[in-house]
């Protein structure tokens, strides 16, 4: 690891090689576009089924709109038997042209904002390729996230530190909790999202029947794909919070220039 001593108390550590920095930002852009264009695609049939073919009327999750007895539009999210009113955001929300319409995800969360399955698919499939190319380039560095014994040994201590997130110290190496989280995203969530997405393609199904079967069938693969997206968004929110609370400038700088500042001796 390259280290510059800036003074007695602060040193700079070269933490992220160029390929990691580049793929980080490109993957971030790709995941954002994929989530938003994915919501556009989901809007075309906002229901998930736990089977191979659709079991219409028996969805695991659906987003829809109907009317109150006096004719007021209502948006709702339905998960199993639970129904939540979500008017204004989910089911019935902004159409991107100043009005409101029945649509699962609102115009501000979809790419494009207006309703277009065709355009949503173009964005989604283009950036799916961008993400996969990113993953191939990043693969050589990804194994740095493989947890070792030391990580497991120090995990309880790291977990305790995170009870007060803004006190988590800046360290040259990833702390065990950080490493495990990135490991989970890179080696578990991302592969599930990519493979379950591929499983939706009828042509890929013809080449590899086992792929949709692995996820419980084509419609079930849509659940995995959707759940993976939710997991990635949850990760993104926590990631942003931690980046902000543990030194926004230092963290951003290290992901742009590679150099990370650490206090104290190593």
């Amino acid at each position, binding site marked *: 690891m390259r280290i510059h001593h800036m003074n007695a108390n602060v040193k700079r550590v070269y933490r992220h090689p160029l390929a990691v920095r580049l793929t980080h930002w490109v993957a971030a852009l790709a995941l*954002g*576009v994929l989530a*938003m*264009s994915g919501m556009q*695609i*989901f809007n*075309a*049939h906002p*229901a998930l089924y736990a089977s*191979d*073919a*659709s079991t*219409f009327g028996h969805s695991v999750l659906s987003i829809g709109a109907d009317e109150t007895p006096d004719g007021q539009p209502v948006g709702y999210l339905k998960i199993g038997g639970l129904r939540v009113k979500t008017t204004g955001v989910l089911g019935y929300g902004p159409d*991107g042209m100043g009005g409101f319409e029945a649509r699962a995800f609102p*115009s*501000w*969360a*979809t*790419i*494009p*904002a*207006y309703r*277009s*399955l*065709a*355009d949503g*698919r*173009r*964005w989604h*499939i*283009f950036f799916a*390729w961008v993400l996969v190319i990113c993953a191939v380039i990043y693969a050589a560095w990804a194994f740095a996230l493989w947890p070792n014994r030391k990580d497991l040994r120090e995990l309880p201590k790291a977990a305790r530190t995170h009870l007060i997130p803004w006190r988590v110290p800046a360290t040259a190496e990833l702390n065990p909790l950080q490493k495990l989280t990135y490991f989970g995203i890179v080696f578990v969530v991302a592969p599930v999202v990519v493979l379950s997405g591929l499983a*939706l*393609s*009828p*042509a*890929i*199904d*013809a*080449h590899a*029947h086992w792929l949709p079967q692995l996820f419980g069938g*084509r*419609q079930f693969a*849509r659940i995995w794909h959707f759940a993976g997206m939710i997991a990635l968004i949850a990760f993104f929110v926590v990631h942003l919070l931690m980046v902000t609370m543990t030194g926004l400038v230092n963290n951003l700088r290290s992901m742009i220039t590679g150099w990370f500042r650490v206090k104290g001796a190593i």
Partner: protein
Amino acid sequence: MKLRRRPFLGLIAAASLSGCARIATSLTQNQHVRALLEAPERLNLAILGAGQPLAQEYAEGDISPTFRHNGFDPPSSEQYQRWVRDDWHGFALRIDGMVERPASFDLPTLRNKFVRRSQITRHDCVEGWSVIGKWSGVLLADLLAAAKVKPLAQYVVFHCMDDDGTGNLYYESLDMRQAAHPQTLMAYDLNDRPVPVQNGAPLRLKVPTQLGYKSAKHVQRIEVVASLGGPLGRGGYWEDQGYEWYAGI
């Protein structure tokens, strides 16, 4: 303080998302961006178009209770209504274009003079839903062999009888490899009964290796051509609206 901050953060998140959506929306209208976004389609075809892998086939017990349909309303022409009433008496499927022997086949000929093929396959709509059904009919390859395709032919175009309500007729196209696929069918039966009007009576193209919009309904004429473009647009009604010609993904 915290209680106030939360909706504020939510607003910031929505506003920044909205900004991204707005940028992407205007980029979508740029023709260079569109060309770039459409570029992977060729790559997808090159990779997934290799070989003639078969779509999964299912058992009778897997057949969906109803075969959901969407798209256009059934053909509204008087001629079509008459055919429905007269049990397709006088209807014939025309095959022409770049073939040695242009021909018309009525339904009894298709049912009795050609080998009947059946498949129980899953129909995947571009919207995201799937249904399983049993389709029976004539292999497209058998029809093309009967008409004898000329050597320079590249595409098979399917002209349909249904329109979008403003007079634009539905049409679709396949390349020669897709047309020769052992599961590409001109189907006259769905679940052992004549194809219902809403599912594409009297003849529906069935391409189980691609999304549902490839499987054109109400096919009246099969035209073999050397290239798409011109009056054949981008090779299909939905393709002209921006959907992929290669509907394998």
